[in-house]
């Protein structure tokens, strides 16, 4: 098991290095200057030259790459051209927001998806199954950005049930340092997490329904019923555990989806996370922020995948034995 974990960690590091390298060269290859943001109209050619020198952009690309890796090894991610602060600070500000958003969305995704999938499988071909199946298909095919705007207009602008954006009320809760402000944070988190989570839940439900249907037709489930066990116990203990294996695979797959979806959701809800930071940085050619964001995001995805693999091993003894 330890050897397996070591192999996986080594592979993860290699994947992250590849992503960072690719991002570094692609963003540098993109046309456009990092020192000409939209708001800045009168940067002189002399200033541009000076800034290029100051940030080392006058060196050859391989030189810049080696320098970047050397700094990275020392834990330095460079300085943002636009934000005028260390990239690590900007990422440290943004990361918790994306983390909480992804976590909440994941919770909604899997809780709702699992419950719906089981319900539909148990009530196969009933009116409820058909209606829920179509609703899930409809939600699953909605663009995240559009669903976000619909929820924002409906629940924030018209009904006033939820705030229109941001992670907290800037007037009453500038810091999350009390219970009311913690609740305020969750209140602000609800719509963005629902937007991300519902789209995912619709997909998860369809997946889970199929998995459950396959399992509840198995001999051992019939045997459990024949033994006189209650239906709830048959479904949740005997069927669900086996139907969970493909579901755990989804955990690993959901992470990249959540992070890419977060880019759009963060824009709609002014959620100051990694997605928003990365998009702005790409548009402004803020090289080190883009590369730093790619580094952190790939690390999160790789970690998600690793956790999924570990869970898989826990859930399926056969895999654990083989892995060991």
């Amino acid at each position: 098991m330890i050897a397996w974990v070591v192999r996986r960690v080594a592979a993860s590091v290699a994947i992250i290095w590849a992503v960072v390298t690719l991002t570094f060269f692609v963003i540098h290859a993109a046309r456009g200057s990092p020192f000409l943001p939209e708001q800045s109209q009168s940067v002189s050619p002399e200033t541009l030259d000076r800034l290029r020198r100051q940030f080392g952009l006058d060196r050859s690309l391989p030189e810049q790459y080696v320098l970047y890796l050397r700094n990275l090894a020392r834990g330095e991610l460079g300085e943002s051209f636009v934000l005028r602060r260390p990239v690590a600070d900007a990422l440290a500000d943004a990361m918790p927001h994306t983390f909480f958003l992804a976590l909440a969305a994941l919770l909604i995704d899997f809780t709702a998806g699992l419950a719906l999938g089981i319900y539909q499988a148990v009530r196969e071909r009933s009116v409820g199954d058909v209606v829920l199946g179509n609703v899930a298909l409809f939600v699953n095919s909605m663009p995240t950005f559009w669903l976000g705007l619909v929820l924002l207009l409906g629940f924030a602008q018209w009904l006033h049930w939820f705030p229109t954006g941001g992670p907290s009320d800037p007037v009453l809760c500038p810091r999350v340092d009390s219970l009311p402000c913690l609740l305020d944070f969750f209140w602000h988190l609800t719509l963005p997490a629902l937007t991300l989570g519902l789209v995912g839940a619709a997909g998860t439900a369809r997946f889970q329904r199929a998995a459950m249907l396959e399992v509840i037709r198995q001999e051992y489930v019939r045997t459990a019923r024949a033994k006189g066990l209650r239906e709830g116990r048959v479904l949740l203990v005997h069927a669900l555990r086996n139907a969970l294996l493909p579901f755990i695979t989804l955990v690993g797959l959901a992470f990249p989806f959540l992070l890419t979806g977060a880019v759009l959701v963060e824009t709609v809800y002014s959620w100051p996370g990694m997605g928003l930071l990365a998009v702005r940085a790409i548009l402004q050619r803020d090289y080190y922020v883009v590369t730093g964001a790619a580094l952190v995001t790939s690390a999160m995805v790789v970690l998600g995948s690793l956790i999924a693999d570990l869970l898989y091993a826990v859930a399926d003894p056969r895999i654990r034995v083989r892995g060991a």
Partner: protein
Amino acid sequence: MVIAATGEPDILLPPVSEFATTRDVTEPIFLKLADLGLSGNTVGDEDFQPQLAQRWEWDAPTTLVFHLDPRAHWQDGQAVTAADVAFTYDVYTDTVVNSPFRSSLRHIAAVTTRDSLTVVFRFRQRYPEMFYDAVYHMRIMPAHLLRELPRDQWRSTPFGRAPVGDGPYRFVAWKAGQSIELAADSTFFLGRPHIRRLIFRFTPDQQVAVIQLLAGDADVIEVLITPDNVERACADAKLACYPYKGSAYGYVGFNLAAPGDSTKPHPLFGDRDLRRALVLATDRERPLHNVFGDLARVPPGPMSQLWWVWDPEIRELPYDSAQAARLLTRLGWIDSDGDGIRDKDGRELSFRLLVPTTSAIRRQYARLLQEEFRTAGVDVQLDEVDFTLFNERARAGRFDALLTTWNTDPTPSSGFPQIWTKAGFGRSNYGRYFNPQVDQLVDRAVTSAMNRDQARRAWRSAFEILNQDAPGIFLFATENVAAVNKRFTDVTIRPDSWMALVRTWRVPPDRLTDRDRVER
């Protein structure tokens, strides 16, 4: 008061930032010596309002003496002194700091102190906007806190993320990507401002900012931009709308030089008559109405509505499609193969228009113009690129024509020469337009006119000559509409800087909500 802002400052240090949001946030933190009055008159000193300077006098035609208000102090308790002013001038003009405002101070020879509360400005020559140059561009910085900071570190100093100012509001907190909070300084020497907290709430999208306003999550928005937004916000019972003159103008700029080779003329736009024909062929009112409704005007040249030289009587080329067609035919551009596009010597009358994808307005305009030109027998292909690439190509002269906008100062003196005279070559004069007569007139208006009328006449002549040369098609000059929650009263917006008078805004006691009462 929560302000829905669509941009976030880069740094809260006025000498090294020209972001509009930086200006908005630092406006209530750092004072100037004096500020522009509501009239917007930048000539002479009679319309300026004292800020840090209690009074001033002219010792000689080129020597201006300011007497600082002895009550003025920094928010850490230190007094504001003449040394702060001299230090500030030194920073703004330092080549290492390289402030975007450095060139605006080029006519000032020196700033010296006479005593701790008296500061002397010496100018290189006498000209109409001497006073404006002395006070408008510089926000005074605390020398005691910044003197030791190496000049090459000004662009990223921690002070810029937690500044100490001398204005009516003090900095409280900056939550990156979320908000900046300022609180009223109860010890402000000109009187405590009425609104206790200003919170700039950042959102990446204009539509979302409007939704925040309509939902009551924000109290103010600087500009609603589109007619749809104006209609929605102004129809909302809790909001009041405040129209004011906009500082932007937009145009199609022709590249007079060959793309990428400024030594050769552009194969199409090097021809003045062809440019004139294209201007004559353009109905500027129609796209303006489509895009802006009543929120913009067709400018009589490259100017914003903010400028005091704005004059609808300035002569320009009219919309005359028949004359345009005759002129194009005379130049040899005829549709010889019947495909609807004029051609000459086997080459179609076709060019590429560079447009930034980040501007929905300019993209909309580009499509409408494309259609207009098509009916005149001119083929326009759109090059839609993101803003950094747009900016890079514009600066390098790698375009046929571009659709661009400029946000201007309250006077043409600083921006116009950078865009429409030889001084702007390699900088903001992307199309390399040059007419020695225009340069001469601009120079006269800026540096040697003795009064406002003389300057106005020189400006008018410059605009009229430029209009006849047709270096661009001047499409729109914006009109802004701000929306403010109705519980705020005494709202006055100065068009060149909408937050400039926020100190005088108030909420009457009977309209105060619990949120307004929260102290920091």
